[in-house]
């Protein structure tokens, strides 16, 4: 027999290292000879898409097509510290560093162009890799020509910037601190499940997610983080457990350490709420970790709704469910 249930969980996540730990990212932007713009960042793209975020932000500020932008990725001898791709921090930290660098570069473009055009900043504009006079749009110079002219003067048209917000070290006795984390992401998930009372297996049917992420730089990628995170949450709730007996792992393989397959996938419905954060790049907050946090408790609550049994330890395996169902039945008798 199958029993249906649904449960809700709401979570918060203070992102960045916070707690007064120095947390910053450095990025730089320069012009390459092949009419490309080079962004240097050590931010590790582990699949989440930070380098795409970097391209989008640089393109946005510099008003160029994203195809023009090329990235020099992580190399300790070619890029500066961007901090880790963890703590849900890269969109916020490296996003801001790149935004700051792009803005600094843009300022310099205006500065040098105003010399070229013998004009004032206010009379200039940029678009598609050109800087031009607003009143004479045909009177334009490309960024790369401008960079060449700057080079001829013995200077370099490039910019480096960082983002280094302050947080406070919490009081060791009380945890109190004025700003312990730079900002918080909030997520609510509702899980719908079906519990098979013959086998104790749980099928997650649907996951609804509403996430306050400030601003989605790339909505598709934000959804990807949420769906992937939720799937890991399903694993945590129902099947994943590294079994250690006297310090020895009994399931160090993918045969007995189970992660969800496509067959375990529920339907996903996701809604992004954009309550822009005053410090985030274009208002963005992070979503890397928060996507996974609410799922396991939402499922546990849904299982309670389905069979009236609450589980206090994860994962909630078929063994535990059948045992509890049997005890429930024995109690009623």
């Amino acid at each position, binding site marked *: 027999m199958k029993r249906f249930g649904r449960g809700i969980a709401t979570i918060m996540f203070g992102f960045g290292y916070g707690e007064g730990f120095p947390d910053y990212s450095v990025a730089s932007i320069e012009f390459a000879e092949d009419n490309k713009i080079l962004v240097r960042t050590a931010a590790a793209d582990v699949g989440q898409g930070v380098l795409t975020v970097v391209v989008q932000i640089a393109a946005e500020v510099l008003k160029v097509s994203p195809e023009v932008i090329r990235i020099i990725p992580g190399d300790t001898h070619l890029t500066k510290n961007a901090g880790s791709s963890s703590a849900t921090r890269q969109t916020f930290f490296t996003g801001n560093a790149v935004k700051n660098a792009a803005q600094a570069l843009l300022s310099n473009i205006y500065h040098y162009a105003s010399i070229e055009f013998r004009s004032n900043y206010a009379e200039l504009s940029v678009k598609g890799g050109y800087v031009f006079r607003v009143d004479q749009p045909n009177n334009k110079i490309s960024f790369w020509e401008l960079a060449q002219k700057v080079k001829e003067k013995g200077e370099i048209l490039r910019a480096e910037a960082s983002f280094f917000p302050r947080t406070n070290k919490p009081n060791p006795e009380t945890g109190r601190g004025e700003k312990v984390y730079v900002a918080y992401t909030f997520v609510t998930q509702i899980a719908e499940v079906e519990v098979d*009372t*013959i*086998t*104790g*297996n749980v099928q997650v049917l649907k996951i609804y997610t509403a996430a306050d992420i400030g601003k989605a730089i790339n909505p598709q990628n934000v959804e990807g983080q949420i769906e992937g995170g939720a799937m890991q949450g399903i694993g945590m709730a129902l*099947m994943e457990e590294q*079994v250690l007996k006297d310090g020895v792992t*009994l*399931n160090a393989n*993918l*045969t*007995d350490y*189970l992660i*969800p*397959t*496509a*067959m*375990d996938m529920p339907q996903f419905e996701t809604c992004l709420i954009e309550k822009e954060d005053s410090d985030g790049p274009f208002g963005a907050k992070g979503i890397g970790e928060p996507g996974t946090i609410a799922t396991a408790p939402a499922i546990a609550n849904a299982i309670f709704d389905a069979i009236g049994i609450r589980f206090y330890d994860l994962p909630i*395996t*078929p*063994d535990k469910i*059948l*045992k509890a169902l*049997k005890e429930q039945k024995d109690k009623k008798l």
Partner: protein
Amino acid sequence: MKNQEGQYFSPQQIPEALEILSKYGKEIKIIAGGSDLLVQYHDRLYEIAGWLDLKNLTELKKIELNSSEVSIGAMITHSQLEKSPQIKNYFPILSRAAAEIGSPQIRNRGTIGGNIVNASPAGDLLSPLIAYEAKLVLLSSDEKNIIPAEQFFTGPKKTILKPNQLLTQIILPLPPQNCYSSWVKVGKRKALAISTIALAMVVKMSEDNQIIQGAKVCLSSIAPTPLEIKEVREEMIGKTFSQVNFTKLAQLVEDKISPIDDIRGTKEYRKEVARRIMIHCLEEIYSCWRDKCLPIN
């Protein structure tokens, strides 16, 4: 392809394969699909002295039907088993069991012969085969043995197969017209799952479809070998469905098994779930029987 050092044989004919076996016997490993063997020897293939690869033995890749039985070549893959119209028609739960093995990749390589010879307590095809009263053809260069499948298994990964013998065919007697079957595999995940427990049940009815004439219930992952609960026969044979007490039968199955705790499930779980899936299978078979008896107009 040439084999220079006697370490890799891929004969075209069965007699040639048997000859190699009688010569090298224990020293070489027989490889069919490889989906169990290469897992077992992961990161230490160098320990294997030589191979007998069955891939060119076309004789072993056939499913043949005659008036009384079906013969399945040992090199038939799980995918072929799943898709074969004959198997689907006569042995539906064997087809279903094959369809639920591992993944498309595993089903495309893994073979029925390999599944049997590997003799894993969790071997997916084993309980349906025993429930359908399969016989195994064991060939060596000097004799041919045909034995009931349930006699083949002696322990986890242990069988009566001798080093000079090759499993070539699996023979299944054609079931009578009124035959019903049910199969449940319980795993922790829907795909790529090794069974925590599985139960196959085949019930054969009299010509008038009223009296139970045969009943076989076989479970896997609950004992060192696949296990038939023979007591079920006594409780069912000669009776009509209305005379059979499902709850009692399910309890009987639970009582007759003594599984162990392992990473895939506890002893308690296996006993509890055995009872529940037994009832499920009985109900499924009963409802199929009823639908056939009383066609809805």
